């Protein structure tokens, strides 16, 4: 029946968009096509061809980027990121980013931020950030098995960084077939993209007593000399009063820059609803512009 079909389909796509994700570590990607190749034909030095109408990127995780820098600066240097919005953001949609990054003047319909390092949050630790939940279900047997494996690999008190590397290796199948799996599903399937890496890392961290949570937003990365902005999810762990980055999907040596847009606070059965209702920022991003460092006089603290 047609009555709610469109809202149901919209719900699916919205959920998919919310969890659109950077592909896990570029090192895990399939090799670049060898020069050329034809129909069951041997290599001849050309790029694998595309046929028919050009297939524009329709990956929900990719965002057009206009970069005025050739390469990402070191993470301790500011990067100016301007987000062209699809429409006026609902109230609160960009609050997480505004809370963490410095807001710059921007043209109507855009918002601009200067980001230095990882924009860590000073949110207090909630009891929920240490407990098992419906999504971060580290009390499930499959996660407990992963924990036991982590102890074997990293020792009895691993750091978040060690766990990030462990999770990267533990998830054998780096693909984007899954929308948003629970930690127990990830530990069992050992498959997924950034969201699966993030929830499993959060679960393992909590299981070792490290307060952890899942954050979504955008990552700006340079891959193959091209600067890309992708929807991404990662983990934050609390350390020294700040929520610090722990990313099992993008290794730190890539020097990715992060734009946190939503902290996952609803980890119950309605977590997708909460993401759809809260994390509208990713849905609003039409285009990203990357600029080099602005004059410090232009940088103002977020109100």
């Amino acid at each position, binding site marked *: 029946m047609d009555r709610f079909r469109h809202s*149901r389909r919209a719900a699916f796509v919205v959920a998919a968009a919310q969890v659109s994700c950077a592909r896990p570590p570029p090192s895990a990607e399939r090799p670049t096509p060898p020069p050329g190749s034809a129909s069951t034909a041997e290599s001849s030095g050309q790029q*694998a061809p595309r046929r028919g109408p050009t297939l524009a990127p329709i990956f929900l995780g990719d965002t057009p980027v206009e970069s005025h820098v050739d390469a990402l600066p070191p993470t301790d240097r500011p990067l100016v990121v301007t987000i062209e919005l699809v429409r006026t953001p609902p109230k609160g949609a960009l609050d997480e980013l505004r809370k963490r990054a410095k807001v710059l003047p921007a043209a109507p319909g855009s918002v601009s931020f200067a980001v230095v390092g990882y924009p860590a949050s000073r949110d207090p630790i909630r009891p929920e950030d240490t407990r098992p939940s419906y999504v971060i279900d580290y009390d499930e047997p499959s996660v407990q098995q992963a924990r036991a494996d982590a102890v074997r690999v990293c020792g009895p008190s691993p750091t978040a960084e060690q766990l990030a590397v462990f999770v990267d290796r533990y998830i054998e199948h780096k693909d984007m077939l899954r929308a948003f799996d629970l930690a127990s599903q990830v530990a069992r399937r050992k498959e997924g993209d950034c969201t699966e890496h993030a929830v499993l890392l959060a679960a393992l961290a909590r299981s070792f007593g490290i307060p952890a949570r899942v954050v979504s937003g955008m990552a700006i990365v340079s891959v193959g000399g091209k600067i890309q902005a992708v929807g991404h999810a990662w983990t934050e762990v609390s350390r020294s009063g700040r929520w610090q980055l722990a990313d099992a999907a993008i290794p730190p040596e890539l020097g990715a820059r992060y734009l946190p847009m939503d902290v996952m606070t609803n980890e119950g059965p309605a977590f997708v609803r909460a993401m759809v209702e809260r994390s509208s920022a990713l*849905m609003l991003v039409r285009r990203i512009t990357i600029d080099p460092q602005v004059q410090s006089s232009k940088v103002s603290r977020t109100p």
Partner: protein
Amino acid sequence: MRGCKLRRQGVRGLAIASLAAMAACAHPEAGAGASAPPSSPSEPGTPASSKIIKGDVQAFYAREVPPLPKTPFTVGPVSGEVESAAPPQTEQDDRSTRLTLSLGTGTPMKCFVYPQPMDVGSQLLSIVKAMTNVDIRSVRPTDVVVIGEQVAVFVEVQYLAKTSGGAALGEVKLMAYGHPIWPLLCMHDEVGYNAAFKRVTSGLASSLKVTGRELRIPSFVDISVERVDGHPVGFSRSATVVDEQGNKLYLESSSSLVPRSGQDMMVEDTSRVETDDKQGRLARVVYAKSEGGEISENLTLEHRSANEYRYEGIHLGKKIAGVLKTKGPKGFATGTEVRRGLRKLVGLGGKDVAELRVEEYHPDLDVGSPIEVLYRPQSKKDRTVTMTLGSAQVTLTLDADGLAQKGEMPIGGVTLTMDRVLLRGSL
């Protein structure tokens, strides 16, 4: 095919099985029939079995064959006709009827007719996932077409394979046709002949018959194709049938194959069967969903009293059960109420209203609570309304009955559209 096991019970099967107490048939639209598990097709992407050819790539892609004579065939209860350069080779067991078809090209086309419903997206994905011996460079849905009020989805996979002479490019074309009685899966592992593949498989799908099994004709069918920036990514199909007990069943099914990278598609199949009670309230929902070819949700919602419902089943692999209440005293809105309200929004009947708020059940989003959806008029002249669901806003174009015939939703830099491609009957 190594690792390519067709799923024995898809979401259609789950939803239908849950209806056993209500309907005696294997599928609400199908007559009673066998329900043997489907068999596994042979493995595509095995260029070792293909002839290695050198030449101009574009020319290979441009290869086609003109229409071929149609050859009738009968294999047990399955019959039809198909274009073929030679009489089709046929095999049959209790798992499938298999056709090997020659287009007069280097590699034959293979088709499988199954005795039970299949999930289109999951079935296509299972073939792609089974191509473990090659390096997949591109996978994408290329077309979604309606054949006889059912939907067929076409997918193309381009791959590289190691050969003794170096890397070779190959292409597998896939087609899955989600007919409730004669679901069909076809594949062709050879570069080019794409139009021929589509023509031959579509013709075969439209000609199929299975003796002794008849389709229960729905009184209403509505099919939409979904596209992202114009590229087909899936479909949704709604239908109403009356079961043998006289209950009116509202059936919805959908498949989405959304490319998320060059080599990955996020695949989802859903099936939902609803019944209303005599008072016109939503009485029961059976919902099943698979993600990435694996059942992720299998839930039943039952009306208990007034605005109270009980839900029970599997949600993301966990057993779950509970009671939910709608804010409204009468429970979830019915389709009739929503259509009536939408018509008022665009001035098609009754007193004009400024907005319509409806409580809906979306277990994908929240298994334990109603979701409030807000509709507002946008243009009475164009019969457009906006539908707001959380942060998502969809613009719907309504027909004269208040049914959505088009939907459009911007998602970041891309736009999802849902366009009706078939409507028959009325609710």
